[in-house]
């Protein structure tokens, strides 16, 4: 797919947390939702999603539950734990700070240097 940005390291976790914060979702759903909310601008290798999901679950940021999907299949649904909510807030804040700083830095004019 053309015009897709490579994912920065560490941002996948943030995107997953954000996607799940919009409502419990299974793996493929999370992938679609990330695409949706990012306007399909980011390229994620699909398989890479799962080790990340497992890691977040292990860190107690995500909770899992087996339920029934929209097409009546058994599926594993991920939702945010309270710790996950907190982490999302922190990460969002720190991401915004980073972006701002990087944008400011990139917007600097030569004579000001």
């Amino acid at each position: 797919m053309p015009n897709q940005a490579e994912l920065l390291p560490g941002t996948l976790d943030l995107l997953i947390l954000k996607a799940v914060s919009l409502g419990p979702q299974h793996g493929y759903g999370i992938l679609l939702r990330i695409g949706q909310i990012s306007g399909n601008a980011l390229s994620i290798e699909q398989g890479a999603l799962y080790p990340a999901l497992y890691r977040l679950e292990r860190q107690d940021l995500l909770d899992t539950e087996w339920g029934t999907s929209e097409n009546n299949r058994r599926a594993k649904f991920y939702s945010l734990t309270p710790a996950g909510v907190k982490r999302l807030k922190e990460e969002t804040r720190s991401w915004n700070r980073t972006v701002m700083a990087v944008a400011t830095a990139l917007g600097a004019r030569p004579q000001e240097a």
Partner: protein
Amino acid sequence: MKPLRLLASALFRRARMERDMAEELALHMEYRADDLVRSGCSPAEARRRARLEFGAMEGYKERCREVRGLAWFDELRGNLRYAIRSLRASPGYASAVVLSLAIGIGANLCSLISVNSIVLHAFPYPHLNRIMMLWETNTRQGVESRQAAAANIFDWKEDTHSFEVLSAYRSWDALLTGGGEPERVQAARVSADLFSALGISPARGRGFTERECQPGSDAVVVVSHAFRKSHMPAAREPAGEKIALDGRGYTVIGVMPEEFDFPLATEMWVPLALSPEDKARRDVANLAVLGRLKAGVSAERARAELAALAATLEKRYPRTNAGRGVEIWPLGSINDITDRFVLILAFAAGFVLLLACANIGNLQLARFTARQKEMGLRAALGASRFRLVRQLLTESLVISAAGGVAGLWLGTWELGLLKAAIPAEILRWVGGLKHLQMDPGVLAFSFGLSLAAGAGCCLPSIYQLLRRRQGDGVSEALKEAGRGYTSSRAGNRARTALVSTEVALALILLVGAGLMVRTFDRMLTVNDGFDPRGLLTLEVTPSPNAYREGTPKAQYYTRALAEMGTLAGVEAAAASGGIGATKWEIEGREAPAPAEPRPGAWAITPKYFQAMRIPIVEGRPIAEQDGPDAPRVVVLSETLAHHYWRNSSPLGQRIRLGGADSPWLTVTGICGDVRDWFFGDAEPMAYVSYRQEPPAAVRFVLRTVRDPMQSAGSARLALRRVDANQAIYNVKTMEQHVAEQTSGVRTAATVMSIDAGIALLLALMGSYSVASFFVAQRTQEIGVRVALGASPRSILRMVLLQTARISSLGLAAGLSVALVLSAIMSRTLYNVVAMEPLTFVGLTAMLGASALLAAYVPARRAARVDPVIALRGE
């Protein structure tokens, strides 16, 4: 908690997690494919693209597993597989370790089972520590009577508060008739509450009521599980069956459970029915007493309470109770001497295991040294030291599990041998021996022990591994390994320590076994005071309703001896039977002090001394003329006579074996001593004439010219000719009796010798392996020495000296420990086992010499080293 839970599921629910993961990923693919189909792909193309977009499926799965903590599990699996492979590659090492451990664990399993059934669970009664045996003592006479008088027991019952139940019983040799051959059974008359005192109720039917403990209504019987199986196997409900004991009909009302065995070897129980006169007697002490303490009451408190009561009774009934006290003892302590033998054997087995461990540690150390190159390589490739430790540990556990399983098998087999070696007669009389069998708890414990031993054995290697610093470890190991076998100084120290320990342990076991064997030997060869060869024994307890106490019984014995005495091959026929001696009094002398010897009293027939070959030292034996109307006579044993008549002859003096109403007996002779088989002490004895004091039961002894067992059949027939209704039992040779008596010590000596033999072998193996190791390690050095002109003899001496140094360390340590331990052992076993300097010196020298001999083979190899080859190996 989540990590823990995940780890737990990683370990125990691996399969389910794998399934879940596969399902989750498959669902993902399906969704993706569906979406692609919707956007216009063909289904086949959609599936292909979904797979492509997903990326490397197995790689992602592996990363998921890692996150989940499954990697840990996979490493373990890898380690296991690696361990098994590397052990397979060195079958010599693996089988040596498995064998050593199996021997150690097998010996331990066997002795743990013995400890479990004989020491810990000999008496399967609930709250065993509250069950007490009580008996009367006579402080003034130093007599320890095991029995008590009925009236006193009733007073104890009334006036003490320590006991929940206080119950009396008396054993009874009953004659069982009605079913073919008359048979002698071991019965007991018990008060109604004996079963409840022990906390066991009949498995079928019921026990006795108080009403059944009245004379006249007491014709009921409770039989043992074994008796029911052997005598009434057909009866579906044994209650209601009739049996005849001593000619009287009894109705079976219950069956005791299999584990109930009190008093030991009892086959049936009947009510103890005392008449009012019996109940009032204080002069006849013929009841055994067993009590159950109230919860929370200590034995000391009960003892104090009983002592106070006994003092009161002494004042109230001075004629009968003067000097009478009460002793109280837990039932559980009755097995005491057997327990001590069993525990000592358990310690010996423990030492064997330790020795096996030292041996395995040594083998592992050698293997570790040989594998340094491999370890170095693994470290160089990035394995952390702890990963290597885990690898060593896994390997150790794998092999010790194998050793453990082999050990359990070996132990089970050994237990079978041990059980087969115990004579049936002994089995009946030692509490718990009957129940010698595998126990799941002990099995599990032994297996755990083998794993622990395995883990312990690789500690020296792990220590070696961790001692190297991370940095130099790799290159050092690779460099060193390149030069062939080398070992650090610490490694050599560890090896030396292990082999010295082996030698020390082996010496301890050898000394222990030596002492046991000497003890057993002494028991066999001790001059018993009679000649057991060529003697046949038969026992009869004439039924009381056929033969009243006194003359009728004596007449029966006379007729029986007349029949048997004329049998072909019988040289002399005689009989003896115990009579109760309550006192010991010499006419015209003060009562003896409590510590002075008091004789056991036996009634014998005239040819008894001749048949037993007990010499008459002075005077004459009991003879035909000593009939009921003749003057009462007695023959005393030598030691007894010498104790009381130091400078004079007792002949013609008079003694008394009972109270004031018993007759005076004139000493007519002195005979040789008979010795106690266990301690070897001369037993003080007084022999009276069977016609003047007829015993209730006798043991016939026949001195035969040929093999005594050949006369057994005709002797039985002869007895049956006299009276076919009497049971004849314990028909065996005197030598069989002796073998039975000494079988416990024989078993102990055998087990200990086997342990010591194994120990010796293991120690020699250690000595051999360490010498070979040193030789292999120093081949080049030896080559240089030889090239420089050292003679083969000096090389031989060098290697042997090294072995001598190591083993003398072990011998010195072992000897000092053995000295202390055998002193303890001797005291624990009531000095039956004597400390013998010769045993110590001989075994030390023997072990030292064998260790040198074991080292001789590698030393010879060293002496023959060809310098050219050795140096080229550089």
